[in-house]
């Protein structure tokens, strides 16, 4: 595939890997967080970690929109389908997310809920047009990448004076989440973040630009390199991060210049701010309440807001106590550190948010990387046997 295979070239990857190994200072450790699930997926799927020297360590961040969706929001969507009898349109990834009462959207569908998988917000609008006698709700989730299409369909629905369409808006924002990680309780306790820099979002940055990261690169003194979702993009970003750390710099660099500008997509930003506005606070699964981290529908478009239309109230639901997703999302723990990882919590029966989507840190490690834990476990067992 033109413009894709070039970014998956194994020969080039080896060269970059060698360069990183040559430049990384053997007397120190480097820990970088890739914020986006897309990066986590690429790292796991292509085995990028294997090409890095042992002292360069990748920490999987919270940038998987499905993973950070709190149980209470899924409950709202399920209630709309089962109690309000709406046609609920949703992206495929949310179908398996565990909710209250051992339900998920997939299980709610099996109980008779009219829940339909769509590929885009526009498809949901089409469903509304085709079913004028039914209420149709689009369960809108995701970061800044999927937000403009949601804003557009709300605007289109208003222009077309549709009366049976509304949106359950759960869109969240990237920069507040990164700031939240840098200011997490562990940071206050330890006085330091166990992170030396960030691989910055790809698709999100196409929309918001590279500008919004400049503030925290400077105030938290953490380098950010925006990178595409192909494995070579990630390798190149890591190489740039190592260099910044070695030089004592902390600025925003753009590896994904083929798509990202400093300003971002101004048209998309304009549509979003016309239709949506900041929420004071929003609950993230694994991170808890994060101030000014999500969007809701403006008063001018109130009739398309499912929360207002159906009088929904938000009921937070605590995560399983044994689940370490919060610490994993903040980069403090690794998936294998969690007691229930791979035993109680698996991709077939996810307990925590990180196990839900293939982009989640735990699911990616379980699906693609768990063989790396096994020789260690086997060696420990052997030692126990000897003792």
């Amino acid at each position, binding site marked *: *595939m033109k413009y*894709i295979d070039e970014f*998956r*070239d*194994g020969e080039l*990857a*080896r060269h970059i*890997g060698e360069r990183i190994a040559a430049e990384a200072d053997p007397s120190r450790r480097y820990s970088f967080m890739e914020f986006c*699930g*897309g990066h986590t*997926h690429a790292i*796991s*799927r*292509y*085995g*990028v*970690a*294997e*090409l890095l020297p042992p002292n360069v360590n990748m920490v999987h961040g919270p940038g998987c*929109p*499905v993973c950070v969706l709190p149980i209470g929001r899924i409950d709202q969507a399920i209630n709309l389908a089962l109690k309000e009898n709406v046609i609920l349109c949703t*992206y*495929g*990834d949310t*179908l*398996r997310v565990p909710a209250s009462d051992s339900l998920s959207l997939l299980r709610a569908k099996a109980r008779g809920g009219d829940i339909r*998988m*769509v*590929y885009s917000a526009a*498809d949901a609008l089409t469903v509304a047009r085709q079913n004028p006698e039914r209420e149709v709700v689009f369960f809108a989730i*995701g*970061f800044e*990448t*999927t937000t403009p299409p949601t804003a557009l369909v709300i605007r289109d629905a208003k222009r077309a004076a549709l009366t049976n369409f509304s949106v359950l808006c759960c869109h969240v924002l990237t920069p507040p989440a990164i700031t939240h990680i840098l200011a997490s309780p562990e940071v206050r306790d330890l006085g330091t973040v166990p992170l030396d820099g960030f691989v910055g979002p790809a*698709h999100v940055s196409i929309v918001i630009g590279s500008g919004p990261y400049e503030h925290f690169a400077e105030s938290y003194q953490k380098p950010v390199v925006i990178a595409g979702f192909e*494995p070579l993009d990630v390798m190149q970003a890591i190489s740039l991060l190592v260099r910044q750390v070695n030089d004592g710099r902390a600025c925003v660099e753009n590896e994904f210049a083929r798509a990202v500008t400093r300003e971002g997509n101004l048209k998309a930003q304009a549509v979003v701010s016309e239709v949506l506005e900041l929420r004071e606070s929003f609950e993230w699964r694994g991170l808890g309440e994060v101030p000014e981290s999500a969007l809701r529908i403006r008063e001018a478009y109130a009739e398309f807001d499912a929360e207002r239309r159906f009088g929904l109230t938000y009921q937070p639901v605590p995560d399983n106590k044994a689940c370490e997703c919060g610490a994993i999302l903040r980069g403090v723990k690794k998936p294998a550190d969690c007691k229930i990882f791979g035993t109680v919590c698996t*991709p*077939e029966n996810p307990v925590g948010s990180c196990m839900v*989507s*293939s*982009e989640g840190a735990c699911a990616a490690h*379980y*699906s*693609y*990387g*768990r*063989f790396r834990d*096994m020789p260690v476990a*086997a060696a420990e067992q052997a030692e126990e046997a000897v003792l």
Partner: protein
Amino acid sequence: MSVKANYIRPLDIRHGRIDMNHGAGGKAAAQLIGELFFPALDNPWLAQGDDGALLPLPEGGGRLVMATDGHVVSPLFFPGGDLGCLAAHGTINDVAMLGAQPLYLAASFILEEGFPLADLKRLVDSLGAAAREAGVPVVTGDTKVVEKGKGDGVFISTTGVGVVPVGVHIAGCNARAGDVVLLSGSIGDHGVAVLSQRESLAFETTIESDTAALHTLVAALLASVADPAAVRVLRDPTRGGLATTLNEIAQQSSVGILLQEAAIPVRPEVDAACELLGLDPLYVANEGKLIAIVAPEAADAALAALRAHRLGQGAMRIGEVVADPHRFVQMETRFGGRRVVDWLNGEQLPRIC
């Protein structure tokens, strides 16, 4: 039971639809079977018109294989095939994957009230043509009709019977460390061809389903090795794709499997469609490919035999069986790393960002 054709109005195949009478066992049912099914599936066992088929015992010893498969594909017609031929190929392949020569098929049709007879005729004709081409007749069958809304057009269940020659021992539990993993051709063609026709996705593509009966390919493979026991495992990677099928084999044989990503053939069109839809070709269904796990000394001959056959021209050696108590299927990626190739989890759903 036959109805005098001259005294009844023939089926209106062009405009007619299935109604509840067609499943009631009366004249309408007999007419449907007589005018639509018999001509399409035409063979002396079916023509006996009894409730079952009376078949001769196979000569030459060996063991019987029996396999059954329900076919519910949506849409019913897709590039490169349809539910009818798929119902023949799927079951023939299940029989063949045990090293057997498939001999007979049985077919059971669940029809939904209102289904157009013209479409039914296309499907039954296609089943008949596939069975004839494979030399495996449909010797007995059944039709039932369910009310509108209780089915999805047509479901076809087929059962196949075959005979495994003496000396052939093929089973999922036979893989051993050191064995070689062969794949008969490109993966993902069937799944992508079907997906391309789904109403919600509809994209234009030239990809066709690979649906095919693989028993002659299996016969060619077995003929190529000096000792038939060198062919350890055969399996067609249908639902769940190559990745899931290899995990099944690793589990059954208590071994690990190490794949080379660069050796696994994927058509560029399939690769591109998967990229767009957020799918991994390793997990996409095939209906005309087989995995053969063979002893290392037989690998070259087996690969040559596959490639010499019309259905195995794109065959590749894709990996090897290794000793691994964890039974992992792993892959050296084209990128240079190594990763687990896990079981398919849930339905393969597209990623969103």
